[in-house]
């Protein structure tokens, strides 16, 4: 399965398994979603289980929270992560805080799916990576898969989780493992081991990172699209890097990160979002605090620039393998 099919299979599985699961969002019903992730679900499970909503992100999330408070497990789609901002108050002031402030009387077991990230010439408002503005919010979980197998297992885990989960889907990976080399022919998921996704129910636990590649020279921290860019960058640099796919940034698998950096003594952080105040800063701080005496070189960040996502300059903005390779060489040589 490609990532779209894997996500669709996760939703289909949960709709079949749990009558409390509902799926809604803009164009997700009859049409099956602008990226086809919900294709066929309304036809199969009915209009009451999978339906279209008005164009109102705040209303979508408010509705989901209210349903969650009444015992359901809503899965809401926000058509693009750039458009999640009108619902930011609902997510931060309500979903994230409901359990704590009510001393456990109410909670929001909601999952908010949204395609994020660039590489598709979507311009400023179809390309952003907003994970940092969620990672800072106490009470929200944020999950970002990098391949079909994880996408399905993590999405099922997110839906079954009793806390609100922001589930960011790397839209550039929907159809194939894009490694940032945009001048190369497109690759599909066909043949990729992670594309062989079981039917039915399984989970990938939230908060467990994956060591995608073992190595001794330097630790690379990445998630989503950047996991594949990291592979290409490591190859290009020809360094024996250990690549960690965080998979969820909240909860964060701090142990796997620390263990790796203590081993390698070096760390490079890769994300597509702009740098300043991005999640890379938190990762850098955590690594520095926990591995200070093991660090043989400064921790580097390879990220998008501190500009909006510029349409014509997509590949100048996108932190591709070449920029990572340069940082890796600098890091291991220092």
């Amino acid at each position: 399965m490609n990532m779209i099919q894997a996500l669709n299979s996760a939703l289909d599985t949960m709709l079949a398994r749990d009558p409390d699961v509902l799926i809604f969002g803009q164009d997700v019903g009859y049409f099956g979603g602008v990226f086809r992730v919900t294709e066929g679900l309304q036809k199969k499970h009915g209009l009451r289980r999978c339906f279209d909503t008005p164009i109102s992100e705040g209303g979508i999330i408010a509705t989901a929270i209210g349903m969650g408070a009444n015992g359901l497990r809503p899965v809401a789609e926000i058509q693009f992560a750039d458009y999640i901002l009108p619902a930011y108050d609902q997510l931060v002031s309500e979903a994230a805080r409901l359990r704590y402030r009510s001393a456990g009387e109410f909670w929001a077991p909601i999952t908010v799916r949204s395609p994020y990230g660039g590489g598709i010439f979507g311009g400023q408002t179809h390309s952003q990576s907003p994970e940092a503005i969620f990672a800072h919010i106490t009470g929200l979980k944020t999950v970002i898969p990098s391949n079909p197998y994880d996408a399905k297992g993590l999405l099922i885990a997110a839906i079954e989780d009793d806390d609100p989960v922001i589930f960011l889907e790397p839209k550039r990976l929907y159809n194939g493992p894009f490694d940032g080399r945009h001048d190369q022919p497109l690759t599909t998921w066909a043949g990729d081991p992670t594309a062989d996704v079981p039917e039915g129910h399984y989970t990938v636990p939230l908060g467990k990172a994956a060591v995608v590649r073992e190595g001794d020279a330097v630790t690379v921290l990445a998630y989503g699209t950047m996991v594949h860019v990291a592979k290409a960058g490591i190859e290009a640099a020809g360094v024996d890097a250990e690549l960690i796919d965080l998979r969820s940034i909240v909860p964060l698998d701090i142990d796997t990160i620390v263990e790796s950096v203590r081993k390698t003594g070096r760390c490079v952080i890769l994300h597509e979002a702009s740098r300043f105040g991005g999640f890379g800063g938190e990762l850098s701080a955590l690594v520095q605090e926990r591995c200070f005496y093991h660090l043989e070189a400064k921790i580097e960040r390879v990220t998008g620039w501190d500009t909006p996502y510029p349409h014509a300059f997509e590949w100048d903005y996108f932190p591709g393998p070449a920029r990572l390779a340069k940082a890796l060489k600098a890091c291991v040589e220092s």
Partner: protein
Amino acid sequence: MRDLPYGLIRVLDHDGRATDTWNPRLSPDTLLRGLRAMLLTRAFDDRMFRSHRQGKTSFYMKSTGEEAIAVAQSMMLGSDDMCFPTYRAMGWLMARGYPLIDMVNQIFSNAEDPLKGRQLPILFSARAYGFYSLSGNVGSRFGHAVGWAMASAYKGDDKVAIAYIGDGTTAEGDFHEALTFASVYRAPAILCVTNNQWAISSFSGIAGAEATTFAAKAIAYGLPGLRVDGNDFLAVWAATEWAAERARNNLGTTLIELFTYRVAGHSTSDDPTRYRPAEEPAHWPLGDPVERLKQHLILLGEWDETRHAALIAEVEADVREAVKAGEAIGTLGKSKPNLAEMFEGVFKEPDWRVIEQRRELGI
């Protein structure tokens, strides 16, 4: 129907006589329970306001003059229905016999605070009493009521959600989004605008009330809008019954404007004489809801001044006792819940961050 948003549904006339059209014909016993809950709410407000002045808590808000609304709706609706309140809906809990001591403990944030010291005073949560979690930000739970009601319809039960929003807060996008979803999905909900004519220092015109009524906003969504005398216990009851009936029969949402008046200041933090005529509250626009219900009962021959005075003394005694008990446990700063509660409940299961930070704090 098209004119209801522009009229005013009223049952009790000036002398406390009940006019016919909307009269819900309640038993004297029901009316007396309502009167008691309203008096209890008022007595509690007065007492806790004083407690704040005495430094026993950090904050308080009264609903003086608006007691009929939450009390009548709490009594009229069922125990399985859910109320999405504002901070001026304490009458809901009073009418359902929520333990005063639990309220006092929450307001004092003491060791017995049911919300474990996490929430500002009066921002209650009481699931068993059909009272949804409050928060300091206004408006953002209005849409939760619609989602809750949609879930109720989805499950095929006949529970309804009732939500309140203040006149000033109708300006938030949340109001429009909630009504849009309520209309599109025919949610079994009762959405109420408590128009007490003030939003802190701003009169309702700043929210658009000079251009039309709040009930008229229902027209934008093709929903029925009722404009009701919110100081009239019987009218509030009747309008709510009508809306609940519609909701339970899957006819969808009703918007109800409850026209009332905020007699006291906004909260313990403001002095209303700085922004409105000092004598305005004395004139009780629409009349004191307690007085009006009392007069009605007297006309029915079910009540008199002596029994009324006795009832006041009784509820004041209940409040005094609860406050004493709460003070015995401790007031703000003198007593607080187990410190570990600060780190609990962020997620269902704590993650390493709060576990480490607990250690960092040495507990």
